[in-house]
């Protein structure tokens, strides 16, 4: 039985390792941004110093624990096999007599008290040291500051130095540290992109900080890791690390006002947006000032909708506005029951927000 358990440990870990190895060899590219997309965005493919440190630590820990596991289970299996009573002895009447009674042994018990103490002492010191190495209390030099605000069930990102407000997709420059300040607008959330760093909770009334530095351009995926209500499962995270030129272009795009379009349907869509409840929740620079839902000023610069629940295109946008509850049941955006003409107009308007 225990031999099986040993195999059970080794096989999946090896399989996981092979899978991650495959991921690096066959890179897939994100359709909208063209950035490389890993097949398994896990902590075993770190792309940032904190995540790399933790990955190294993980293999060390797995190694130590596997060694202890093997020693203990081997002792157990040995005892089971060697000291198992024969069939005759199972019958109570046939017991030939009791084995020698051993009440304890001071040297042996001392050994299996002291050796574990030494092991956990070393582990505790490693833990203390790595906490200090990874957790920073002040921003790294030259870091880009971003404020993260968790909402039920989407992410708001503010770049105070750049005057940018966006939602759900964090765009950062590669090879430059990023300093996140984590807040929540409602309940607890947790920001977790395994390839970039460990997770950190977003707690109302409590400011947390987290840093990472993407070592290469790419798309890094994660999701909210603290249960936050109905749609916790679809509170997805997406970080795009771009090269300097790409990031500068993105910043310029976000800082410019959305292009205006004089198309009749677009204007009608804008009227619908302002006349109905849309504007009460959504902020569009120069148009509306809602703060409850995601900022839509440059909606179409993003590649997903509903905090990652679907890829963003005109079809999903229309479906979303028609009834968000089909794509993300329980989310806080209601269906406004627009007729087809209104839907077409609103979609036409939102599609101009690039």
């Amino acid at each position: 039985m225990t031999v099986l358990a040993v195999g059970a440990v080794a096989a999946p870990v090896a399989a996981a390792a092979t899978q991650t190895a495959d991921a690096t060899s066959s890179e897939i590219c994100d359709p909208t941004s063209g950035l490389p997309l890993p097949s398994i965005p896990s902590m075993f493919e770190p792309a940032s110093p904190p995540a790399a440190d933790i990955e190294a630590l993980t293999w060390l820990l797995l190694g130590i624990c596997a060694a202890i596991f093997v020693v203990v289970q081997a002792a157990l299996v040995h005892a089971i096999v060697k000291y198992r009573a024969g069939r005759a002895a199972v019958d109570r009447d046939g017991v030939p007599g009791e084995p020698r009674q051993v009440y304890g042994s001071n040297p042996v018990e001392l050994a299996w008290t002291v050796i574990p103490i030494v092991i956990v002492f070393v582990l505790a010191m490693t833990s203390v040291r790595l906490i200090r190495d990874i957790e920073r209390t002040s921003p790294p030099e030259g870091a880009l500051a971003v404020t993260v605000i968790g909402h039920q069930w989407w992410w708001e990102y503010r770049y105070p130095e750049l005057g940018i407000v966006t939602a759900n997709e964090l765009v950062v420059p590669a090879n430059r540290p990023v300093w996140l300040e984590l807040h929540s607008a409602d309940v607890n959330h947790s920001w977790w992109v395994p390839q970039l760093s460990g997770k950190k909770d977003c707690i109302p009334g409590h400011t947390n900080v987290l840093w990472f530095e993407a070592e290469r351009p790419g798309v890094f995926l994660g999701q909210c890791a603290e249960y936050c209500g109905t749609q916790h499962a679809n509170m997805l995270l997406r970080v795009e690390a771009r090269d300097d030129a790409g990031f500068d272009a993105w910043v310029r795009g976000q800082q410019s006002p959305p292009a205006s379009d004089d198309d009749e349907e677009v204007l009608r869509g804008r009227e619908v947006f302002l006349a109905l409840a849309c504007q009460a929740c959504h902020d569009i620079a120069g148009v509306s000032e809602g703060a409850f839902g995601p900022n839509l000023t440059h909606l179409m610069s993003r590649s997903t909708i509903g905090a990652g629940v679907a890829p963003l295109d005109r079809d999903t946008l229309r479906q979303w506005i028609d009834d968000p509850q089909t794509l993300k049941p329980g989310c806080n955006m209601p269906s406004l029951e627009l007729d087809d003409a209104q839907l077409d107009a609103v979609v036409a308007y939102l599609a101009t927000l690039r």
Partner: protein
Amino acid sequence: MTTLPTTPAETVADRRAEPLSARLHLWAITVDHKRLGIMYVLSGLVFFLVGGLEASAMRAQLARPGNDLVSPEVFNQLFTMHGTTMVFLVGMPVLLGMGNYLIPLMIGARDMAFPRLNAFGFWLFLFGGLLLYYSYIGAQGLYGTSAAPDVGWFAYAPLTDRTFSRGNSTDYWILGIMVSGFGSIATGANLVATILCMRCRGMTLMRMPLMAWMMLVVGVLVLTALGPLTAAQVMLLFDRNLGAHFFDPQEGGSAILWQHFFWFFGHPEVYILILPAFGFVSEIVPTFSRKVIFGYPLMVAATVGIGFISLSVWAHHMFAVGLGPVLDAFFSAMTFMIAVPTGIKIFNWIGTMWGGRIRFASPMLFATGFVAMFVIGGLTGIMLAMVPFDWQVSDSYFVVGHFHYVLFGGTIFAIFGALHYWYPKAVGRMLNETIAKWSFWLLFAGFNLTFFPMHISGLLGMPRRIYTFQPDRGLELWNLLSTAGVPLQAAGVLLIVWNLLRSHRKGAIAGNDPWDAWTLEWATTSPPPEHNFDEPPTVGSRRPLWDLKHPEDPDGRYE
């Protein structure tokens, strides 16, 4: 010197002659620790089946990504009720109930110290549990529908605030658990008083069975840990219903305060759930290895040590909260430290088996399975104490795998071992050994198939408590395997239930001491008479029945 009076045969036949209503009435008004213990275990097992059904529904939903078998709302209720049920309505009552049944017999007492308080505690637990489940019918959730609580078993603020949890399902969670918690506090006090004051002549503290030591520490932990939870629940009730703001950050309260309160209860709670299991295994392993427990004094010291250290490790549930490097380091170190006494226990059990003559009857199978599985849960626990690693896997399926190895592979396996071991004592008949072995192997295979892959899905980035998972993240296979283990486990559990039911009538007659064991409970009849022993026994060592069976070589001279 050990003296053991004989007890007259039970008057079972007389009782069977009475009408059913009279017999049920006797159960309802009883203050007998044995009847209360049996009722604890039976109601705990019923809740176990309910909690298992909830888990099965969750695994069915997570068999593949994007499944829509249950809605997000229902899924969130399922994991909340599953966790709450398994901790408060299965683990606690079954373990405290077994303590209730066994402790007076093991220490040679007539009953618990406070029999009426004992009955009060049981009925509070049962009605607390029923109140929680009444939420499925009576609570109001969103849109006027009925709703079970959906805030998770640790009910983090401010999700529990009226703003985010409308209706009254969260109030059902608070009240159900609070009521059953009062029952647990009563039982905890009773256990401590019984063990300290009711031991028979000759049974010094250092001659108690290890199980009694474990239950003593459990009693102290219940008294220490349940109070803060109850207090926090009262505050939460005030927040929700009287406009207080203890946990409401928008009005100056603190959301993190709830986490401290909850885990100050929640971590000792883990040891409340595992120490009795250690106790069962410490009784079963010597009996079936035919050897005295190895290193009794060190086992006692390790138990007491765990009791103390378990009160200062709670914030290891909160490494991602951002408590700062100093607190993170402290709780990390304390958590590593608790691994030492826990390791000692594992080594001492293996030391007991070493050189023995091991019979693998069903109780020993479960006990050995416990040791093997608990080692895995303990090692992943050590990994989780490493703070930076925890930052990655905290709140992921790695943690779900970890604590199921501790609480299912650990506690539940030990409970099943204990059921197979003491069922003959409580019922007077043996369980069917063939069925028992089938149920063990089915459970063992199904358990590992379900819970081992969870470590991997967690390492690959799957958070817990999500009703669906993303298809592009390498999680499909591991989730499918986890689901595939469910039917095996269900078959194992149903076989056990069937065995318990059928052996009640059909099992072979057990006799007083079917396992050739050494502790006092095997000296009386099976089932024991209402007063346990005709005359209070006197013991001269840790193994009074060994002394009787081997007068030429009594234990006392080695202790």
